[in-house]
């Protein structure tokens, strides 16, 4: 199991019984704490499995070293600090077929963070798009 703080079973999740409940009910944990992480849930499919293996954990593994990918039966659970980006033009090269951001969205099951598309790129970011940062339109 990954030792990253972004791992599925990290932090309090690694605790059990009374040790878990003590931290869970601790006074400081009775309010939300701002988080700079993002979570992405990808439904397993032929294309998504390639994107996980050969793109995110392959050619782009150094893009964001906080990225954790875990196998949760029918889906891949991804968590990273900051952002996760997928360039679908590059994915199309790997897959050897046409693959747009809309093809990618077919198998994106959930996002926690601000997700958006621009051109061939899918991004999920901790930035507050539309508030702190303007959402861009495609430029001609």
């Amino acid at each position, binding site marked *: 199991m990954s030792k990253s703080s972004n791992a599925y079973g990290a932090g309090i999740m690694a605790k059990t019984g009374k040790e878990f409940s003590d931290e869970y009910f601790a006074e400081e944990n009775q309010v939300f704490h701002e988080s700079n992480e993002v979570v992405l849930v990808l439904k397993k499919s032929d294309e998504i499995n390639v994107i996980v293996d050969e793109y995110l954990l392959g050619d782009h593994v150094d893009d964001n070293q906080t990225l954790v990918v875990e196998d949760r039966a029918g889906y891949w659970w991804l968590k990273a600090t900051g952002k996760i980006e997928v360039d679908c033009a590059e994915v199309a090269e790997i897959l050897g077929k046409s693959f747009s951001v809309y093809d990618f969205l077919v198998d994106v099951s959930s996002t926690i963070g601000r*997700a958006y598309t621009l*051109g061939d790129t899918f991004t999920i970011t901790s930035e*507050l798009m539309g508030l702190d940062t303007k959402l861009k339109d495609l430029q001609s």
Partner: protein
Amino acid sequence: MAISTATKAATDALAANRAPVSVNAQEVHRWLQSFTWDFEKNRTKYPTKYKMANDTKEQFKLIAKEYARMESVKDERQFGSLQDVLARVDAAKRVHPKWNETMKVVSNFLEVGEYNAIAATGMLWDSATAPEQKNGYLAQTLDEIRHTNQCGYVNYYFSKNGQDPAGHNDARRTRTIGPLWKGMKRVFSDGFISGDAVECSINLQLVGEACFTNPLIVAVTEWAAANGDEITPTVFLSIETDELRHMANGYQTVVSIANDEAASKYLNTDLNNAFWTQQKYFTPVLGMAFEYGSHFKVEPWVKTWNRWVYEDWGGIWIGRLGKYGVQSPASLRDAKKDAYWAHHDLFLIAYALWPTGFFRLTLPTAEEAEWFEFNYPGWHEHYGKIYEEWRARGCEDPNSGFIPLMWFIENNHPIYIDRVSQVPFCPSLCKGASTLRVHELNGKKHSFSDDWGERMWLTEPERYECQNIFEQYEGRELSDVIAELHGVRSDGKTLIAQPHTDKDGKLWTLDDIKKLNCVFADPLKSL
């Protein structure tokens, strides 16, 4: 064959000036913006106390053609799997019997939420004035229609291909008997479509979808897979591929009102009310479905809740909005207590009232009891001993003449229904955040289980007039109610609901229930 002059002219013109073979969908989206539709002065049938900005964006740059193509690919993959490989490998019969029962409830109740979300997003389309925001809401309306069909299909698929179809095949008429139904209508119907349009968006999109669909539609697939169910992941993960756009719609609703003065006055109260409304039902019901409706456990429900609700939704969605004045809901402390205990409280009552269900329930086995005690220290002393007593009295066997509801009456543990959430609770037994408080209005008594619902009722009592099951059936004998509401199998006498899933166990009939002479009584009348 000769061609017309017009066709020839068109063909010649195209030969001279080739039309583009394809246009990038995002270029089309940009081009659509040049239409500069102005909805700013449009009147809406669904006004809001907030002012929604006129320049709000839609994050995925959807156009109709790509939207339709995406959804058709999703459907092809989903139905292809269900009708081809999953049918061939007899997947529905490989599901653990306990989980088969859980999906009777989960898929059918989610269907209701999806159905009401059609109306909710149609309403939001009418209220918004930004063209892109309207575009996002409109796509969501179409998504919700798809989801309604998908949920119905899951129950249809299980009833056609699986085991014990009773309940899967007629949930739409039998689901109304028991106490879980009206609470579900409160969160999935009233919460989504009644009141201020933006408040409905906060209920549906910012809380219901961005927060609770992750355990309800994503995490559930892991529990399903662990219990041999490949059908639910195939459908629910496909449903969830639309939910990310809905979450974005909810976020953009907040963006659209962020600069409105009304936001600073109302938003935190509306968010707290929506959070409490949604969690009050989802937290115990999902926890109960996962932990008591499965044989193979994935992780304690409180951990699932802590991850998806507290850490990720709380930290990544709500926490990040702190600098815009959005605060942690004041009800969070009680919600956390509920996430630890309320599903255990609810199962105690659900099992006691098992004849009113449209599914079979089972008591925890000895192995499961160990798991509960390990993960929830104190569980055995409080709950486990009660189950041992019920089992010793033969609660699973119709010859025993005992249903656990009788134990509640014998031991003076009255069950009340919270007026606002419609969730049942037993103040003398619960370890969650519920305590009894009673108000009287116009000669009628109302029970409440918590500060937050009580406060909502005091503000708008006219909004929460739904009869609870004790009022609705008062004076009626239990087997009569079950028969009237079609809670029996095709033989006309055996109950759909049963207190076990043992294929060799005896099944309870209407006659077995009639012998008990259980008559509904409103506990508030005796106060």
